[in-house]
């Protein structure tokens, strides 16, 4: 590199630093990364990123289409301004002045396996440095064991990049960067509910895309409930009659497309059929599944047909959902209908069952069906609190109701997912971000071997009052608070005053979501999804 050019670059950097003094810019501030990486260090240089930055891949998994597609997605995000990637005008203008500091992004992926399962290695390292005597080209390098680790690294890289309005170029502040990152929990979920309100495919894709920005990695799809049955089930086609209307449905192919779309972003889809207590809509197509026409829930425990249908649904779903976890629900089972329906009552008497015995019988039989399809069953916590010792030992317990249930479940050797409703139910609109953020899945669990059984947590976007028009702003930004809790080190999220350590970054992340077209609601409002209180900067609301 010639000294003249170096001088030019220095002048250029000085100019941009000087001009940034008049208006605040990320250059003056802490690293605006969300969720905060496990380890990172940074310097004090500002680097420009070439709009035509090239992708260089290496390693056994470098050639993956998942990487190529993600690179293209992120280039669209990073260079979305008119003078960005593809704008000939700006390219010519800048080529005359300077060379860019970052001209390539190297992605090294060691494994060629694209299998996406619970606990897949999501670690990565990211280095961004300027050209110097040692390296001829200035570059950013992401190194990961799996393609999914590389995806997380790309997200972090995109958050380092900021469009600078003075130079009209994309800059990376505070370089050189060295980031070594991995998640604290392997399961970082978000529940959506397509039974209370149908969510169009396009909206589900928007949700999945937004999850990848916060490094969430499981979409828990509560597909069916008592209100509607939107998914096609080829083995029992009449189940589809339980959809709200003929428009509000998913075909098998639609569901597969959602799974594929999610996988491209490193996100697993965990399907749920919530039996026996949340399944009234099944009977619209098969009334035999109801105890009686006038008493329709829970599913009729007495009939083999009930379990045949469950088996059919699970067989069909197995072809769609490759994730090893499958959710069988099992919550809020009100067994009055069983007591009040003559043929069910007789059946109970014949077996000398209480209604609670029958509830257990139902859940365990459904578990065996799931296990026979090579699935690990997940059940809501009532199954554990009602008959925990009888559950299959492979069961993953999902908490929602009682705050210390994970503590109890892991003590019995079960794995657990934390979703405490007081803090991580997104339909509870009166929980501000701080409370979401401060909720710790490992609370009260000290033994490291037991801590390992808490596979992670999940924020739940129940759909009673959330449809297409409000679902994204009810999810964001609060889901991001939980996402950092689950990704970043416990130390990083537990120390210090979060008003200083987290809030400015969360403001920034919420605006980043907005800039990417995600309608994340203001951070500072006490109630979720409320409009901004008055005019103002996104970064101050």
């Amino acid at each position, binding site marked *: 590199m010639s000294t003249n050019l170096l001088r030019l670059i220095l002048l250029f950097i000085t100019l941009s630093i000087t001009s*940034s003094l*008049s*208006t605040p810019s*990320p250059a003056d501030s802490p690293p605006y990364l969300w969720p905060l990486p496990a380890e990172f260090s940074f310097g004090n240089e500002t680097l420009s990123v070439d709009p035509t930055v090239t992708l260089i891949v290496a390693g056994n998994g470098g050639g993956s289409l998942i990487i190529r597609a993600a690179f293209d997605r992120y280039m669209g995000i990073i260079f*979305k*301004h*008119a*003078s960005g990637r593809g704008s000939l*005008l*700006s390219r010519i203008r800048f080529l005359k002045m300077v060379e860019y500091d970052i001209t390539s992004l190297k992605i090294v992926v060691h494994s060629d396996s694209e299998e996406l399962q619970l606990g897949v290695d999501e670690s990565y390292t990211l280095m961004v440095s300027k050209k110097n005597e040692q390296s001829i080209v200035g570059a950013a390098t992401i190194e990961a064991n799996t393609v999914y680790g590389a995806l997380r690294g790309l997200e972090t890289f995109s958050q380092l990049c*900021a*469009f*600078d*309005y*003075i130079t009209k170029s994309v800059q990376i502040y505070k370089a050189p960067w060295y980031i070594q990152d991995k998640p604290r929990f392997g399961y970082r979920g978000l529940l959506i509910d397509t*039974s*209370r*309100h149908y969510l*169009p*495919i*396009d909206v589900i894709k928007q949700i999945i895309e937004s999850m990848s920005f916060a490094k969430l990695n499981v979409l828990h799809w509560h597909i069916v409930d008592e*209100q*509607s049955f939107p998914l096609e089930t080829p083995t029992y086609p009449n189940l589809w009659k339980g959809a*709200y*209307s003929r*428009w*509000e*449905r998913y*075909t098998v*192919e*639609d569901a*597969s*497309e959602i799974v594929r779309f999610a996988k491209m972003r490193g996100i697993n889809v965990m399907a749920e059929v919530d039996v026996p207590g949340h399944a009234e809509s099944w009977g619209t197509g098969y009334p035999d599944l109801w105890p009686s026409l006038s008493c329709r829930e829970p599913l009729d425990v007495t009939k083999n047909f009930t379990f045949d249908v469950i088996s059919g649904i699970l067989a069909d779903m197995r072809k769609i959902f490759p994730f090893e976890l499958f959710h069988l629900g099992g919550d809020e089972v009100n067994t009055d209908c069983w007591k009040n329906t003559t043929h069910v009552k007789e059946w109970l008497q014949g077996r000398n069952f209480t209604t609670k015995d029958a509830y257990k019988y139902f859940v365990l039989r459904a578990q065996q069906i799931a296990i026979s399809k090579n699935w690990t069953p997940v059940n809501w916590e009532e199954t554990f609190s009602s008959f925990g010792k009888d559950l299959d030992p492979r069961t993953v317990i999902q908490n929602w109701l009682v705050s210390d249930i994970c503590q109890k479940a892991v003590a019995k050797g079960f794995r657990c997912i934390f979703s405490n409703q007081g803090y991580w139910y997104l339909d509870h609109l009166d929980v501000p971000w701080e409370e979401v953020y401060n909720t710790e899945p490992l609370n009260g669990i000290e033994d490291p071997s037991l801590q390992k059984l808490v596979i992670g947590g999940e924020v739940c976007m129940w*759909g*009673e*009052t*959330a*449809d*297409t*028009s*409000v679902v*994204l*702003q009810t999810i964001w930004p609060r889901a991001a608070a939980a996402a950092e809790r689950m990704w970043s080190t416990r130390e990083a999220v537990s120390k210090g005053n979060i008003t200083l350590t987290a809030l400015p970054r969360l403001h920034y992340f919420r*605006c980043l979501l*907005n*800039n*990417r*077209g995600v*309608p994340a*609601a*203001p951070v500072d409002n006490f109630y979720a999804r409320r*409009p*901004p*209180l008055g*005019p*103002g*900067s*996104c*970064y101050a*609301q």
Partner: protein
Amino acid sequence: MRGRGAKIAGVLPLFMLFIAGRISAFEDIERLRIWPLPAQVSHGGRRMYLSGDFKLVTEGSKYGDTSGILKEGFDRMLGVVRLSHVISGDRNSSGSGGSALLQGLHVIISSSTDELEYGADESYKLVVPSPEKPSYAQLEAKSVYGALHGLQTFSQLCHFNLKKKVIEILMTPWNIIDQPRFSYRGLLIDTSRHYLPLPVIKNVIDSMTYAKLNVLHWHIVDTQSFPLEIPSYPKLWNGAYSSSQRYTFEDAAEIVNYARRRGIHVLAEIDVPGHALSWGKGYPALWPSKNCQEPLDVSSDFTFKVIDGILSDFSKIFKFKFVHLGGDEVNTTCWSATPRIAQWLKKHRMSEKEAYQYFVLRAQKIALSHGYEIINWEETFINFGSKLNPKTVVHNWLNTGLVENVTASGLRCIVSNQEFWYLDHIDAPWQGFYANEPFQNITDKKQQSLVLGGEVCMWGEHIDASDIEQTIWPRAAAAAERLWTPYAKLAKNPNNVTTRLAHFRCLLNQRGVAAAPLVGGGRVVPFEPGSCLAQ
């Protein structure tokens, strides 16, 4: 607008050849699920399917589509028809055989230009044949922008059949002749009270096309922030909320281009002198004084130089024939309270009100010098209507009866009366948006011709990227039908169109637009589980 009826009548006999004889009854209209309702519709009762490689053909079209506007519009149309569904079905096994298969759309455009001109012909004719007839649907239009409207209508005829997993059109054959009632069908967005990121503005533009709105009124700057780059006066940009809540000049050009390719004009506004405090962040000389910062300093030539610089820059990117100069809510107290300006007023023997008039008229002249016609908010008309340049369009918002007075005086008018068409009034229900008639109390044809149309206004005090779509939709759609559909076809009682509007709202949802439920005022959330169609 006027005189178009005769043209359509002229082509009608030719068109009649296609009509299969089943003219639907008026009551049938609400079952059509088309929004906004076309001027003339007839249909049959047969089902057809779209071929897997549904094609665009343009034989006989004078329009060359070198810019790709038609092709892109066609591809977008197919995209929203598929709604992300996987099209996997075998159409030929549907039992109807190949004859029910629609191979493509034949688009014939008679004008070769893709210049987006205000008031130009937006009409189109759409014919979907019966299963026995040739295998292409036909769309005829004068201009490519009329054809884009036709594509929107076509997209609403198509449905994804979830059982057969193919795209179908029911009730064929279809014969539709359509044109807008008003040439100005606007939506205001406000990027000063809250910055709206580029993808959000683009989403708003896309959603406008679904309802056939055609003017995006961009209230760029106001008291609170100045997000747009002005090359002639670069420090104006210092008035942005932050270093990143900004639009470059190229961004604005890109928005204009994005809108143009969808047949939408962008009306840029600077609201002078009363809504311009943020200008002074970069140029404090524009304020009367440091502690009295609004309206802009009327006494200084520099003020008008800056306006001239802004409008000169505007003229390079905002190609719409109109520019909006605001002029509303001018509190002139600062002028008298600032000694320097008070002296100037005295010297020129002007009252505050006269200075207000002087300011607006001088700004008008500057706009005219850059080739623009002017739009001003109604206070300018109320205060000194007779002095306004005859090319002025008066933009109503405050007073009922204003439209009558403006048109009686010979000026043109845009209707946005706040009690019905201000979207930030979230207690205003969609029924009011639907029922608001621009010709209220105006019977004189000449006066009617001066009403260019109307606009719904999405003021941004409580609107940011998180809630803009659901505050705009579905209520803007109710106004859009009022502005598009012939008066005689509009429902006298808005509640008669509830089902069709609910369907359009669900269609917006399916297309990824966060349109709110109908039940209630604006931006309501669903109060319980239920079908989209019922909420």
